[in-house]
């Protein structure tokens, strides 16, 4: 059973903003948008490239892969546009005091 791991201080990630962190030997992009925090694997499922430098859309709550523009939902990692057709892995997030805590999804 995965536990929540401290990923960042709330103050480290402005709204909107993102921070790439290493958690348990994985690269996770922690995102702050429209008042909420999210966490996704830093992997575009289209070609395996990194998502973390992509454009963040605070209206439809998505991040676009900087390589080919595939959009992924911040809420659940769902692939919203081509060329990606598989979701990226999303992780549960909670705030404890001033810390963003992430529970890694093992899938």
């Amino acid at each position, binding site marked *: 059973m995965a536990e929540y791991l401290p990923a960042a201080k709330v103050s480290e990630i402005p709204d909107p903003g993102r921070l790439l962190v290493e958690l348990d030997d994985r690269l996770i992009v922690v995102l702050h948008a429209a008042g909420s925090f999210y966490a996704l694997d830093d992997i575009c499922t289209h070609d*395996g490239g*990194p998502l973390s430098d992509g454009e963040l859309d605070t209206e439809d709550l998505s991040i676009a892969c900087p390589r080919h523009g595939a959009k992924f939902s911040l809420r659940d990692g769902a692939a919203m546009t081509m060329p990606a057709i598989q979701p990226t892995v999303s992780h549960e997030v909670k705030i404890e005091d001033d810390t963003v805590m992430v529970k890694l999804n093992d899938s």
Partner: protein
Amino acid sequence: MSQAIASAAFSPAAFEAHLASQNEPAWLRERRQASHAAFEEMPMPGMGDEEWMRTDIRLFHLDRYCPPAEAPSESIAEPLLSRGVELGGDMVRADGHLLTSSLAEKWASQGVLYGSLRVLVAEHGDLLRPFFERQVVDARYDRFAALSDAWWSGGTLLYVPRGVVIDEPLHMISAMSDGGADLGRTLVVLEDGAEATLLAETASPNEEAGGMHCGTVELIVGDNAFLRYVNLQNWGSKAWHFSHQKAVIGRDARIQWTIGALGSRVAKVNQHVALAGEGADAQVNGVMFTEGKQHLSYHTLQHHQAPHCHSNLLYNGGLQDKSRIVWRGMIKVDTEAQLTDGFQRNDSLMLDPDARSDSIPGLEIKADDVRCTHGSTAGRVDEEMIFYARCRGYTRQEAIRTIVAGFFQQVYDRITIPSVREALGQAVGQRIREYE
């Protein structure tokens, strides 16, 4: 994400201490110093680089590894390739250090050198210097190549004088402790008309061991010479493996180069064959099998530099779980390399829907009278083949296992050394899951 990583273990001060411990000729010391300076300046490859855009090494931290100071007291892994083979020589290395080395007197008396590169370059510096100076592997290709050129330790040398035919395989195993570092370097030189077979394998003490290997393999095959070289990469599943490997083939010379890629967490390998002399012939065989979250990235180049050369590459990969194989192959034909016959093929068998194979064959041809063909396939186990096997009494699991074995058989059939065929078949067979 490209950035130079400061590492105390590989700092200039540590490097000077490393140099002082090597007892090497001045020319080699100077070369190491130049490569270390380049290493200090070069950025770590990043995903913005074409060759690295499919291989993520952001979780690799060089500063977590140290050049091994002392050798383990005994061998830390069992060899696979030498079982039941009458050997002409054998070597055991651990964490880059030589543990044992032997060469049959009948070969030593003919001038053959086989053993630790570090030891032999100190004893035969004048003989070996021209081969180092050929810079077969470009030490400035990337940061890993520079690191290897500056920091290599131990290593393996096989030198076969003109006309000497070694009709018994030579073997070496290089093992790495869990969490350790291996900076081995291999240099093979076959003078004109020589023949030899070298079975090289890497291993870890257990299947889940980690560590870092950063090394180079240089194969120099003289005119009319024939080299069979086998390289079985079988590191533990948490190891990082970075390797630059290149062969230069002389006039009417031949190489049969077989790669088995089974281990490591992430492997990034450049395997180049330069057909430098007229009529040179290269056969390249690859067997890759991955599982878990392994990521193996192999970049091959068949470089035709002279007329009438022949190259034939076949890489087969089987992928399980969420593993990924990247194969990027190029046949490059220079303007003067007329009447080239080049072939490359990569087939991938997808055993799990979450596995991923990136297969990218390429041709770059400047001559106008050549035949170059390439191809690539990827697919799952054919349900009709399973049905056919089940009609003859196989269970589904037995059918899949047999089909997977058959998939690799087309590569095994090209390998002329029985122990290598058996070792590869056994290693792959142990990894195949029981699929429903």
